């Protein structure tokens, strides 16, 4: 498995449904060996983009390639790409094992491969039960098992955390980490950044069918800058000292009687300043960067819209 043969390259992809452009001149690249989050609010065009990438929807313009070829031109796509697009996509009367064995037959894998992937996703106990009795989380696992059948070096997952409980999400995170560490390309879509924040290394953020930002997750955090929380019995003196060193007044907020919240500075700066000014500190901490806020700023969505429907976009 060389490093660059699992690259996903999307160039100028466009698709219009009726009067509305679902995807407009979208361009981005996904590198192997890492997990990339494909993010955007509901209706941003994520699912349409993934379906064009996988040859299910015909683009109006542009091209998407995986390992240098269009999906339709891959000789044995199941061996290169594994995809989870819909969690309900099973015949309800078939067992999980029968479902997997059908795709073993079609792709020419031995039937034992079905049991291997069932083990891998922790579904072995339910393998002989009809899918109609599966929970949403179990369907997600079965969909993932289907994607893993061909041991693909590229994984494309549309909202894979949907329906998983916190334990399931932790399990998914470990599994995808391991797969990425083996040099595979992992592309994971979500409409909730916080859901994949612990999982992804890179992000591609789209809104209204256009790419608004792509790059490492850490760069996204830097957009917002660091945030420091500090408790002191002399908040007014600290506030004044900070403004004297050039921190704009608007970046300092009084978050309690003895508490300040300062953006754009590091804990080191505040600690040394307080020491120099002989201001006692009771507590000093870096806040977790509010990436969700950055995400909403980029996609133009208000906080209120955040926890909305969890269906695909």
């Amino acid at each position: 498995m060389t490093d660059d043969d699992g690259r996903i390259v999307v160039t100028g992809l466009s698709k219009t449904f009726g009067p509305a452009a679902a995807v407009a001149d979208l361009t981005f690249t996904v590198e192997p060996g890492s997990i990339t989050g494909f993010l955007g609010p509901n209706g941003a065009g994520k699912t349409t983009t993934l379906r064009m990438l996988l040859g299910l929807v015909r683009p109006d313009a542009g091209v998407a390639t995986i390992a240098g070829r269009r999906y339709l031109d891959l000789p044995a796509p199941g061996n290169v790409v594994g995809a989870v697009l819909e969690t309900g996509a099973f015949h309800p009367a078939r067992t999980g094992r029968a479902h997997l064995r059908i795709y073993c037959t079609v792709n020419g894998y031995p039937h034992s491969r079905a049991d291997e992937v069932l083990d891998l996703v922790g579904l072995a106990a339910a393998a002989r039960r009809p899918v109609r009795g599966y929970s949403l989380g179990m369907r997600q696992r079965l969909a993932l098992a289907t994607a893993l059948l061909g041991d693909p070096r590229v994984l494309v997952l549309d909202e894979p955390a949907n329906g998983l409980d916190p334990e399931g999400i932790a399990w998914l995170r470990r599994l995808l980490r391991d797969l990425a560490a083996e040099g595979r390309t992992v592309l994971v879509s979500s409409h909730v950044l916080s859901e994949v924040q612990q999982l992804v290394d890179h992000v591609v953020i789209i809104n209204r069918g256009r790419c608004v930002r792509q790059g490492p997750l850490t760069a996204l955090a830097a957009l917002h800058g660091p945030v420091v929380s500090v408790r002191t019995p002399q908040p007014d003196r600290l506030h004044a000292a900070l403004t004297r060193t050039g921190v704009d007044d608007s970046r300092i907020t009084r978050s309690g009687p003895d508490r300040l919240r300062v953006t754009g500075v590091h804990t080191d700066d505040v600690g040394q300043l307080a020491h120099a000014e002989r201001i006692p500190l009771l507590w000093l901490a870096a806040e977790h960067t509010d990436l969700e806020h950055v995400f909403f700023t980029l996609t133009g969505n208000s906080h209120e819209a955040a926890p909305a429907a969890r269906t695909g976009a």
Partner: protein
Amino acid sequence: MRRLIAGEIHKLLATRLWLWLLLAAMAITALYASLQIAFSDDPDTWTPPLTTPDGQQTLFAAAASAASPLVAVLAAIGITGEYRHRTATTTFLSTPRRGRVIAAKLVTYGLVGIGYALACTAVVTAIAVPWLSARGIELSLTGNGLPATTAGGIIAIAFYAVIGVGLGALLREQVATVVGLLIYLFVLEPILTSIPALDTWSRYLPGPADNALTGITLTNQESLQPWQGGLVLAAYGLTIAAAGTYLATRRDVA
């Protein structure tokens, strides 16, 4: 292509629908054949006497008459189920050349149709041979055009399977496809064929073409030659299948 066909057979056998429809086809065949024999002496009957080759061919064609619509329904359910249960996504991810998927289904359901035809012909044989013998009619399974009727039935049922797959690929909606098929076969076509003034063109409908191909003689209806019936059925099957394949390969799977 072999793997795709094996996959389709696997899908079919993963649930029991094929078995229930096969049992239904065999039961209907048994009922139809029994009624024909029981009432063959009724002076008002439309079927020729069982002592004649025409009568015996009509009796054996009960197999195709009973099995054809059920095979068409099974084939239609087989392809529309992919859209209904959204497995079309996974199927087309495995095989992005969608025309190959449709071709595999055409072959698979054609083969299934042949199996149905043989099973239903066995039912007619099991009923007709002892019953006619008890009436003093000696039945030669290799004579009186009966092999042609059986062969015609096999061909007819295979084309009904092709029509079912093609219509399903065209419409995608399972309920619409199956209900449409049933309404056509059991309501529309009987009405059209019952009007003598329309006879010159209604004989080119699939049902009368099927009758012609399997050698059914009905005293109240004119029919085509068997080979003409076969050509007409082939034309329907291939046209619908070609249109369905064309659309299935071009439409977005959303």
